[in-house]
């Protein structure tokens, strides 16, 4: 399964989100490849990804992609990430 974590610039928030998403996926026992991307790369990457993780402000910017766009409000809240990823991979 391919997941893309998106932020505006590709060096900060997407990396944090990727790290926490990987922690959660490991705990859930889900085999997935998480890529951190900035907005420029994300739209392209999102064409072949199942899931896109991002913040509310950026979700609109990504626009229409075939992937399931999940909005995460608190990048450090593993419970929020767990809840949303669990619902998405069911």
């Amino acid at each position, binding site marked *: 399964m391919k997941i893309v974590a998106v932020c505006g610039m590709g060096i900060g928030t997407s990396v*944090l989100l990727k790290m926490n998403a990987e922690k959660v996926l490991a705990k859930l026992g889900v085999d997935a490849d998480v890529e951190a991307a900035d907005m420029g790369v994300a739209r392209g990457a999102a064409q072949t990804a199942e899931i896109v993780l991002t913040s509310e402000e950026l979700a609109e910017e990504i626009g229409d992609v075939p992937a399931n766009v999940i909005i995460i*409000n608190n990048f450090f809240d593993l419970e929020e990430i767990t809840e949303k990823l669990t619902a998405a991979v069911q």
Partner: protein
Amino acid sequence: MSMNLAEALSSITTKATASDWRAAIRLAGDGLVAGGATTDAYTDEMLAAVDKHGPYIVIAPGIALAHSRPSPAVLHGGLSWVSLASPVEFGHSSNDPVNLVIGLAAIDHDSHIQVMGALAGVLSDSAAMTRLLAADSADEVRAELTAIAAAA
């Protein structure tokens, strides 16, 4: 013992005054410049990022991670820490107001992964964050971060 964030921080300011989110980001930018990581142009780039994408940098309640792309304005990787005396609104739908602004500068997309890991560890520890935000001086923040790294 995990990486000590105190060592990655080139500048720490506590109980700073910022009239609005732009002033708060400027303080984080000044910290990066003071630490030699960036030029003033990077501060403008960090502000432009929020103008363009909105306050997506407020990644958790009370915490903003100011940053922009690797650019000629970044001389080397750096991290600055600015805790605010009074919380500031950034216009985020769920995580306002902000008490802590961290400035991040990177020269590429991967060399600062370890620092990000250490940062993530500290910022997600709410007990540690309460102590860190209460700190009155840079020395106190450093001491607390060092203690956290030693305990990890």
